[in-house]
C-alpha cells in the first residue's frame, strides 16, 4: 500500500480540493482508497474565516480513519472495521468502510506515532491500494513517515506569485538532500555525534540555546564525521552559531536531520536559506534519516481577502501562477481545474 500525504503551505491552499480530485480519480481507476488526516477537514464552513469550504465526498468501498464525532454526523453509511485506542479532540479514531457514498469529515491521528499506527491498520485490515493523508493548515510534522508528498500552495499563502515560486523552489531544494540510514532507527531523539573514535549521545533533545550548544561543541573536534540532529532546533540560533560549530570540526562532515519536514519547521525561510548556504560553504553535507518523495505540487489562485474586518473570496491570475511555478520547479505542478491535471496520477 502506497502512502501519500497532501500538505498545505497555508490554510486554503487547496488541500481538500486536491484530495477530492485524487479520490475521484483513483475511484474511477478502480483503486481502493484509504483516507485519513492529521487534523480536521471536510466541514462546510471554514473554522477560522467562515468562508464556505469544499467538502469530502467518500465513494463506496473507500476506507476511512476518522474520529467518533465525525462518524456521528457522517452523511455516508459505513461499516466498522476496527476501533483504535487513539483519541483526538473529537473522540476515538475508528477505521470504517463506506457502504453508501456521502460526505464525511475527516479527523484522524494528530501525531506521527498515531499516523504510523493508523497506517499499519490500513495495511493489515483493508484492501486499500493506497492511503491518502490529509494535512491540516500548514502542519508537516507527522507526514515524514509517508512515502510520497504533494504540496499545495496558493494565493492564500502569499499573493505574490514570484514569492510563491521562490518558496516552493526552496522547499524542492530541501527535499533534494540524500537519505542516510546508517543511524539506527529508534525513539531516542538525543543529539548524537559520530567520530572515528565512536558515537556519543548528548544529554539534550534540542538545539535552541547556549546550554545545548555548549554540550554539542564539547563533543565536536576534527575527528567528527557526522552529527545527528533528530529533534528540535532553532533555525535562527543555529544560524547565529554555525561558525562556532564549523571551527571545531574544520573538515568535511555530515549533518543528519530527521527529515526534510524537520528543516521546514520554521516560519522564516530566510533563516533556513542562510543555514543551508553556510553548510555548503563549509563543506558540511546534509542528509536525512527519513525522506519522503516530493511527488507533485498543486496550486490554488484563491485567497480569503480581508475586507472590512471579515473575509471575502479573491483570486490571483491563475495562468501566470501556473506558468511561473512550472518555470521555477523541477517537480510537476498542477492546477487541478485545468486540462492535463490527470497526469498527476502517473506520478503516484
Amino acid at each position, binding site marked *: 500500500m502506497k502512502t501519500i500525504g497532501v500538505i498545505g503551505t497555508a490554510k486554503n491552499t487547496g488541500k481538500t480540493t486536491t484530495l477530492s480530485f485524487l479520490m475521484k480519480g483513483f475511484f474511477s481507476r478502480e483503486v481502493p482508497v484509504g483516507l485519513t488526516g492529521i487534523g*480536521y477537514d471536510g466541514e462546510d464552513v471554514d473554522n477560522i474565516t467562515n468562508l464556505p469550504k469544499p467538502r469530502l465526498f467518500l465513494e463506496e468501498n473507500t476506507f476511512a480513519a476518522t474520529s467518533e464525532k465525525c462518524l456521528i454526523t457522517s452523511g455516508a453509511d459505513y461499516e466498522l472495521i476496527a476501533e483504535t485506542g487513539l483519541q*483526538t479532540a473529537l473522540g476515538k479514531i475508528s477505521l470504517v468502510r463506506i457502504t453508501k457514498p456521502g460526505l464525511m469529515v475527516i*479527523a484522524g491521528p*494528530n501525531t506521527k506515532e498515531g499516523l504510523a499506527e493508523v497506517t499499519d491498520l490500513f495495511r493489515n485490515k483493508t484492501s486499500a491500494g493506497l492511503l491518502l493523508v490529509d494535512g491540516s493548515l500548514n502542519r*508537516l*510534522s507527522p507526514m515524514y513517515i509517508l512515502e510520497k508528498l504533494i504540496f499545495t500552495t496558493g494565493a492564500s499563502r502569499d499573493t505574490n506569485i514570484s514569492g510563491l515560486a521562490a518558496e516552493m523552489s526552496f522547499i524542492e531544494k530541501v527535499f533534494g538532500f540524500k537519505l542516510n540510514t546508517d543511524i539506527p532507527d529508534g525513539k531516542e531523539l538525543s543529539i548524537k555525534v559520530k567520530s572515528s573514535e565512536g558515537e556519543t549521545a548528548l544529554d539534550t*533533545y*534540542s538545539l535552541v540555546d547556549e546550554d545545548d550548544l555548549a554540550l554539542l561543541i564539547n563533543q565536536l573536534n576534527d575527528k567528527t564525521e557526522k552529527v545527528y540532529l533528530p529533534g*528540535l532546533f532553532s533555525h535562527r540560533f543555529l544560524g547565529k552559531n554555525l561558525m562556532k560549530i564549523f571551527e571545531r570540526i574544520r573538515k568535511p562532515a555530515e549533518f543528519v536531520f530527521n527529515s526534510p519536514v524537520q528543516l521546514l519547521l520554521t516560519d522564516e525561510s530566510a533563516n533556513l536559506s542562510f543555514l543551508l548556504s553556510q553548510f555548503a560553504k563549509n563543506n558540511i553535507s546534509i542528509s536525512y534519516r527519513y525522506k519522503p518523495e516530493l511527488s507533485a505540487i498543486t496550486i490554488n489562485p484563491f485567497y480569503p481577502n480581508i475586507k472590512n474586518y471579515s473575509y471575502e473570496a479573491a483570486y490571483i491570475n491563475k495562468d501566470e501562477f501556473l506558468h511561473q511555478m512550472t518555470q521555477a520547479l523541477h517537480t510537476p505542478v498542477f492546477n487541478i481545474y485545468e486540462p492535463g491535471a490527470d497526469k498527476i496520477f502517473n506520478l503516484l
Partner: protein
Amino acid sequence: MSKRILCVPFDPVHDVGIKIIKNELDKNGHHTELLSPDLSPEVIVKIASKGNYDFILVSRTLGYGVAEMLARFVDMLDAAGVREKSKIVIGGKPITPELAAELGFDKGFGEHSSLEELLAYIEGREVKQAGTGLHRTKKDITSKYDYRFKHTEIGSLLDSIANKLITFTADKTSPGVERAKIRAEIFTTQDEAKKKVLLSDYYSLCDEVIVEGNTKKNFVKGVREVTAQEIINLNSFLGRSQPLNPYKIQYNEKQPLLFKFLGSGCPIMDITHAKVCERYGIDGFLIINPSWEARYEGLLQGCLTHENDGTITSFENIKLMRESLDESTLLTVRAHRGLNTPETVLLAGKAGADLAKINLVYGSLGAGTDPVRLAVDGVEAIKLAARYNMPFDIPGNDELSGVPAWKTLAGLLINVMVGIKLGAKPILKPLFCYGPHIVINGMMKQNFIDYNAAKVYALREIVNAPIWPGEPIAFMTQSEERVQSANATSYHASLAASTGVDAITVASTDEAYSRGPICITSRIDSIRAISDAFRFVGDAKFATTSQADYFTEDLINKITSTLREVDSKENLTAAIYDGLLGNKEDGAYPGKFGYGTVN
C-alpha cells in the same frame, strides 16, 4: 493522582484565563508551572521537552495568521518528542473541539467549557454530563400568591364591579361562546355522525371565509397547510437539536422568568426559533395570532402556515408548538381580543398550553372588540381557563394607545377580581415602557426607573398577585440599532429583577424594525444581554428616588378614583363606553367587532 502541568500563555497580553486555570489546578492538588508570556516557541518547546509534564496547556486568542502559528508550534512539539509523553491542550475563547483537532491539539477548551470539564480531562475521568435536555422543571408563576387585597377600598370596589359584570353576562351568550361549547363537544364525542352535525352547527356560527377555508381549503391570502415533508423535516430537526449545555438566564432563583413572542406566521419557523431560544435559557413563549383572526367569527382548523405577521392559533398549530417545546417551557396563547376568545382558550387548554392571555378591558379598548361582546366572551374564556387550570395573564397594552397608567392598571385589577371570582389564577402585566401618556406628561423626564417601579409598587400595595411586566418590556425605548435595543431591554430587565417581579416578556432586538420575520440572532441578542444584566445586578437593587414613592401613592389614588367611577356605572361595559378606562383623548375607542351579536 496529581499531574504535572505546564501552563503556557502563548500570547503577549491575554494570560488571565490560564492564570485562573492554574489556580484551579493547584487547588485540586496538581503541580503546575506557569511560563511568562514572552517566550519564543523554541524556548517553550525546550522547557516542555526537558520537564516531564503530563499536560501542556496552551492559552491563546485567535487573530489573523494565529492558526498557522499554533499549528507550527504543535509541529515543533511533535518534532521535539514532547507528544510522546505529554498531551497538548489548547484553551481560548474561540476554541472549539473542531478547531483544536484542526490545529493538531489533543483537546480544546473554549468559551463554553467549564473548569470541571478541564479538570475531568486532566484527571482522566468522565465529565459529569447532565445529558441532553434542559433539566428544569415547569414553574407556576402563581403558586406563591393568595390574591388577598391589601387595599380594602380597592378590593371592595372591585368586588362590586366584578359581581355586576358576572351578573350582567350570566344570562347572555354569543356566537363565540356557543362555538366554544360546540368545539368542546366535538372533542369529547366519539360518534362520527354526531360530530358531523356538530361541525355543521359550528359552521353556521362562522363567517363565510372561515367555512370556505375549513371545508374547501380555500384559505385567506397567504395561508396554506403545512406539508407532510415540512413536518418530517421539523421532527428530524427536533431529534437532532437537544441542548447539551443549555444556558441559564437567571443568576438567582428570585430573578424573573423570561418570555418571548412567537408569531412569525409559520409554526415551523416559530418552533425552530423557540428551540434555539430554549437552548439559550428562555422560560416561555406567547403565541401571537394574526390580527385578521380576531375579526372573523370562527377559527381555521389544521396545521397552517401564514405568510404574514401572526401565527394561526388553530388547535393543531398550538398542539404542534406545545409538543415541540420542552416540557418545562411555558406556553401562553393570545386570546384577549376578537371574536374567538372562549374558543381560543378552549383550544389552548385542550392542546396543553400553560397559560392564556385575556384582558376584557384592553381587548375592547385597544384591540377592537365590542365591549359587551368581549364581556360575555371574556367571562366564558376565564371560566375555561379555570377549567383547564391555566393561569391567565392580563396584558396592559392599552397604555400604548395613550391611556394613562392608572386607568390601565385599574383595568388589570378588574380582570384580576373577575378571575378570582371565577376560580381562575390571574397574572398582572403592567407595562415597562415609555408610553405616550408618560412622554407627554414627563413622568420619565428624570429617569426610566421611578415610574416603571412605581407601577409594580402600587400593584403590590393593592393585591398579593403575581406580576409579569410586558409586553414587551422597554417598548418605545428601542431603536433600529441592535446593540442599543439589547441594552435598553437589558436595563428594563434589570429593573424588573430588582423589583422582584415573577416574569417579563422581552422582544428581539429587531422586533420593531425587522420589516418581516424577525431573525433568530436578534432574539439571542436580547436574551444574552439580559443574562449579563441579571448577572450584573444579582441580588442588588436599583435605588429609586423619592419620586417613585410619590408616583406609587399617586397611582394608587388615581386607580381608586377610577374604580369608584367605574363602580358608579351599571356595569363594566357601560364604564368602557363612557371612557372611564380610556377615552378618545387618551387614544382609546370602544371596539366595533361583534357589536350586536350578544343574545
